[in-house]
C-alpha cells in the first residue's frame, strides 16, 4: 500500500486578471485548480498565449493571483506580501530558467551558494553544501569556473544545483532545455529524472514541447487559461 504522499501544491479557483486600461480587465486564468504531491514529476504544457507563464509566475510566488487559494507546503500564500513572497521563493521554490540566468563573473560555486546567502546560512555551511550539490549534478570539477567558461548544458546543471540549494519544496523549471541542443537537452532531462528518482524531488516542468512533457509522470495541459487535461505520462 503506497503512502498517502503530502500535498505540496494545492490551488483552488485561481484567477488572474490584468488591467489593460479601464474599464477592461483581461482575465488570463479562469479559476484554475491544481494539486501536486510530494515527489511528483509533473509538467504543465501549453502553447504560447495559454496562460502558462502567468500560472508559472503564481506557482513560483513571483506574482499573486487576483482571487483563489494557493497553499504551498501547507501555507496559504495567495495573499502574502512582497517581503513574504521573497522569503517563500528563497526557501520553497527552486527556479530553473530557460536562459540559465547564472550571475556573470561569479564562480559556479558562488552561484550555487547564492540562495543560501539570502537565507542567512553561514559561510562554511554554504560552501560545503554547494560543493555537495555540484557533485550531484556532476559539475564538481568545474566549481571555480565562471559562466562564461561553461557550455549551455554545464550552465544549466549549475543552475539546477543552485535551485536545490535551500532544499525547496518544489523545483520549478521553465523550458529548461529550450536553449540547448537535443543531445545536451537529453542530458539535462536525465538529470531531472535522476533527481526525481534518487532524491525524491518534486519537479514542476513548464513547457510547450509535448514530447518532453510525455517523459514526466503527469501531464497537465493548459489552454486559454484552463486545464483541459490531466494525463499520465512516463514515456522516456
Amino acid at each position: 500500500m503506497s503512502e498517502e504522499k503530502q500535498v505540496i501544491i494545492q490551488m483552488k479557483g485561481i484567477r488572474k486578471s490584468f488591467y489593460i486600461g479601464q474599464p477592461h480587465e483581461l482575465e488570463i486564468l479562469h479559476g484554475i485548480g491544481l494539486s501536486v504531491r510530494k515527489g511528483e514529476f509533473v509538467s504543465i504544457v501549453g502553447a504560447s498565449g495559454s496562460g502558462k507563464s502567468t500560472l508559472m509566475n503564481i506557482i513560483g510566488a513571483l506574482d499573486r493571483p487576483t482571487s483563489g487559494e494557493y497553499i504551498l507546503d501547507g501555507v496559504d500564500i495567495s495573499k502574502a506580501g512582497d517581503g513574504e513572497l521573497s522569503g517563500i521563493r528563497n526557501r520553497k521554490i527552486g527556479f530553473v530558467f530557460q536562459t540559465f540566468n547564472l550571475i556573470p563573473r561569479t564562480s559556479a560555486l558562488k552561484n550555487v551558494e547564492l540562495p543560501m546567502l539570502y537565507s542567512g546560512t553561514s559561510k562554511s555551511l554554504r560552501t560545503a553544501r554547494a560543493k555537495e550539490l555540484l557533485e550531484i549534478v556532476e559539475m564538481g570539477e568545474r566549481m571555480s569556473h565562471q559562466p562564461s567558461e561553461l557550455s549551455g548544458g554545464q550552465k544549466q546543471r549549475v543552475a539546477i544545483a543552485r535551485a536545490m540549494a535551500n532544499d525547496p519544496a518544489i523545483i520549478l523549471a521553465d523550458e529548461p532545455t529550450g536553449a540547448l541542443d537535443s543531445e545536451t537537452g537529453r542530458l539535462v532531462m536525465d538529470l531531472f529524472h535522476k533527481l526525481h528518482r534518487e532524491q525524491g524531488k518534486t519537479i514542476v516542468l513548464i513547457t510547450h514541447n509535448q514530447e518532453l512533457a510525455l517523459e514526466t509522470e503527469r501531464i497537465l495541459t493548459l489552454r486559454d487559461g484552463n486545464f483541459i487535461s490531466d494525463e499520465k505520462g512516463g514515456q522516456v
Partner: protein
Amino acid sequence: MDFIENIRLAVTGLLSNKMRALLTMLGIIIGIAAVITIVTLGDAITSTVSSTMEEMGGKNITVLLEEKNPEVVLPGMSQTLGVSMGFDIMGNMAESDLISDEMIGQLWDRYGDEIQALSMIEQVGNGKAQDGRAYSNLSVSGVNEDYEKSESLTLLEGRFINDRDIDRAVNVAVISDKTAEAIFGQADKALAQEIKVHMDTEIQTYTVVGIYEYEELVMPMTTQVAEEDVRTAFYIPLSTARKQTGAPDGCKSFTLMAKQNIQPSELADKVENFFDVYYRDNVNYRCSAASMDTIIEQMDDIMGTVSVAIAVIAGISLLVGGIGVMNIMLVSITERTREIGTRKALGATNGNIRIQFVVEAVIICLIGGIIGIILGILCGVFGSSVLGYPAFPGIGIILIAVTFSMLIGVFFGYYPANKAARMDPIEALRYE
C-alpha cells in the same frame, strides 16, 4: 546578507571593468586630491609667512601714518598689513603730516616704562661699496640707536649707530660681515676703515664703526642670487640719511618693541590713542598702531576666507563626481536587469538589492577617495617642498576626506539602488 559578501561583490564588479571603474571615480579622485593639495599648501604658506613674520619681529608694534580714506590693496587687507608686506601705499604727505621728533619725545615721556625700544628706519636707496675690483651690493638705510635692539641684530665687532652720531649727522656706518669680507678681506679688518659707497649720482664716504652678522631671511619664493651679489643692509645715522635724501624731519612710520611683561596689543592701543590726539584735526591722515599679533590674525583671516572659497570649489567638483557615479550606476543597473530579476527570484528582498548597490557605490567612492588622498598627498608634499616649507596633511583632513567620499557614495548611490530594489522581478527576468 553578509556585508563582506557585498563588498567582495562590489570589488569583483569593479575589477572586471577597470577602465569604466576608473572613469567613474575620476571626479571623486580629482575633487579629493584638490582639497588635500590645497589644504596642505595652505598650511605651508601660512606657516612660512607666520614664521617669517615672527623672524621679522614677533613682539613688535608697527606704528604708521594711514590715509583716513584709503585705497585698499586687497579687500579686507588693512594698510598695516599692506605696509608690512612691502606694499607702498602711502600717498603724498606734507611735512606737517609727518610724525615729528617732538611727538616721539612725548611718547617716550608717557610710555617710556612700557617701551623697550623705538626704532626708526628710512631707506636711502640701493648702492654699491667699491674698492678697486672688490664690491658689495648694499641697501643703504638711515636708522636710530634702537634699531639694533628691535631687529635683534648681532653685532660682531665695534658698535651700532648711537644718539651722538645722529645729533652730529656724521658719515658713519655699520656694515654686514659679508660686505666687510668682500671689501676688506676679513670682518675685523674693516673697523675704523673708510668705505666708499656709490649711489645713483654720487659717491659717499663713511667710517665703519660696527659690523653685524648678516642673516638670510627665509622668504618663500625669492629668486636665488649668487653669493657675491647678495644685497645686504648698510646702516647710517637717520639724520645723515635725511640730509642725503633731502627728506624733511619727521617720519612716516616706526617700530616699537614692548617690554617683556607688556602685552603688545595693549600697548598698541595706547599708542594709537596717544597719536589720535595729534591727528584729530588732520583731514587726510591718522596714526595707527598694530602689533604683529594683529597682523598675523588678519593674515589668518585672509587665508581662512581663501580656504573656504577653495573648499567650495572642491565641493562642487565632488558634487560633479558624485553625479558621475550616480549616472554610471544607473547604466550598470539597467545592464544588470536580468541579474537583479534572477536574484529576486532566488529570494533577494528589495532591501538586499538596495544594500548591494549602495555598497557598490560606496566602494567606488571610497576607492576613488583613497586614490585622491594619495594623489593629494603627493602633490601637496611636492608643492609645499617647492615653496620651501614641506608640509604633510594632518590625519584629521585625511579622515574627513575618507568619510566624505563614503557619504557621497551613499548619497549618490541611493537613487540608483532604490530603482534596482523596486524592479518587478517578472519584468526584470523578461528583459533582453
